[in-house]
């Protein structure tokens, strides 16, 4: 383990709405209690699904670890992690009310700040963005002065494609503040997670996330976001990795023939994506033998795109196997230190409140 390794995907679990109430204003504190909204669960992570929380990291009642002590014991201290980025998945994207979504996002972000960032100097966090563009923008502006917030976080399946012009003020603000756009697996459940309709099973939905990532990536690219905001980095989080080369092949091949439709995309999509898009390596979605992994990395044609992440406390590995098998040892310093530092401007600068 490299001392300065940066874990780019850690999930602080909000134990329930009650934990957020102290971080809400009087209206929301009262109304959530009055309405009996005690929990908000997204179907993206069923509490008892084995993949949602590693068995040996669950609490006595099977609950996910939800305090900084657990994170330190299970991950940071154990693996000697230099810095870790918290990506809260409390589903603030679920409420249809713009106001409730924003109130919950503000509370989660302040909860993360007070109960995690303030308690361990190694930690950084994403700004969890609410559904509304104006509200997302306000949340970025509210928290950007605290440089321990290192990116903006959305789901790969939101209300509208992320490249649409409605979203551009958010992209502009992120670029201006040196914050990457983090896109995490998951859905706001406004649309079926597959383009052919609702899946019947959890495994079907889980696997469909890569389609959501593909759609989001294609939207950002074809709408011209990556070209218009060249300083913007996009991080695909918990996306899987191995689907990317085939998708880029298709996107680039199609672009050669119909690029006149999107003339602002004036160089091959695969090149643009290699310059501005990064991916966390859990899950990795590749066989474990080194030769196959090397071939896959070859297809990426870049050693700068991958970021180390354990995806704590989701279950991807046993014990301390924090790096997917088959990754060449020579690449690890890049994946664990150099690439995260290159991706997250605020990690380079050192964070402060």
């Amino acid at each position, binding site marked *: 383990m490299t001392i300065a390794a940066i874990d780019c995907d850690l999930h602080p679990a909000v134990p329930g709405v009650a934990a957020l109430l102290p971080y809400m204003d009087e209206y929301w504190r009262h109304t959530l209690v009055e309405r009996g909204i005690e929990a908000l669960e997204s179907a993206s992570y069923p509490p008892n699904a084995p993949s949602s929380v590693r068995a040996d990291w669950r609490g006595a009642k099977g609950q996910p670890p939800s305090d900084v002590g657990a994170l330190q014991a299970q991950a940071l201290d154990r693996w000697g992690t230099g810095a870790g980025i918290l990506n809260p998945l409390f589903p603030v994207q679920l409420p249809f009310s713009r106001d409730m979504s924003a109130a919950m996002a503000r509370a989660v972000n302040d909860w993360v700040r007070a109960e995690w960032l303030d308690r361990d100097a190694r930690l950084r966090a994403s700004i969890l963005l609410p559904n509304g563009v104006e509200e997302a923008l306000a949340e970025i502006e509210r928290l950007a002065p605290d440089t321990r917030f290192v990116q903006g976080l959305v789901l790969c399946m939101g209300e509208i494609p992320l490249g649409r*012009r409605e979203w551009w003020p958010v992209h502009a603000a992120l670029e201006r503040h040196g914050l990457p756009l983090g896109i995490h697996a998951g859905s706001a459940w406004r649309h079926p997670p597959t383009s052919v309709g609702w899946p019947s099973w959890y495994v079907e939905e889980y696997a469909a996330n890569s389609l959501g990532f593909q759609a989001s990536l294609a939207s950002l690219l074809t*709408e*011209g*976001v990556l*070209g*218009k905001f060249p300083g913007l980095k996009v991080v695909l989080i918990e996306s899987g990795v191995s689907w990317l080369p085939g998708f880029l092949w298709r996107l680039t*091949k199609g*672009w*050669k*023939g*119909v*690029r*006149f439709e999107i*003339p*602002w995309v*004036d160089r*091959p999509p695969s090149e643009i994506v290699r310059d501005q898009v990064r991916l966390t390596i859990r899950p990795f979605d590749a066989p474990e033998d080194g030769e196959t992994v090397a071939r896959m990395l070859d297809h990426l044609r870049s050693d700068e795109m991958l970021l180390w992440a354990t995806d704590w406390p989701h279950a991807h590995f046993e014990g301390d196997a924090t790096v997917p098998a088959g990754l060449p040892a020579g690449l690890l310093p890049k994946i664990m230190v150099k690439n995260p530092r290159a991706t997250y401007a605020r990690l380079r600068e050192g964070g402060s409140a």
Partner: protein
Amino acid sequence: MARHVVAPVAEIPPGGRKVVEADGKRIIIFNLSGEFFALLDRCPHQGGPLSGGILCGLTQSDAPGTYRFSRAGEFIRCPWHQWEFDIRTGKSWFDPRRTKVRPFPAAVATGAELAEGPYVAETFPVLVEDAYVVLEA
């Protein structure tokens, strides 16, 4: 390279094209506003017949949502995968350095000049008072 008299000028009007055989190759002759250009009738991608494609212009952009259109009719799109090639150079738009169609010199000569030879004999009579498209291939 031999010089081939491939058509009377009047046979390929501006915006028109003609496929000819020369030196065992299929070659497309284009008339762009009175200037003649020639490209091998074979896409460098998978060998598609470029002559079956549509003529298009150049679409560029300074920013998302803006369209700058120029050089109408000066590009040909392969009918198989719609890659755009610059008729003036044979270069593809998306990868001009590596992906290009072989161009051939084409020019206009008068019948009087052609009477002096040496030229490959063609299947039509060359009249001193007419103009002809001459291809080097």
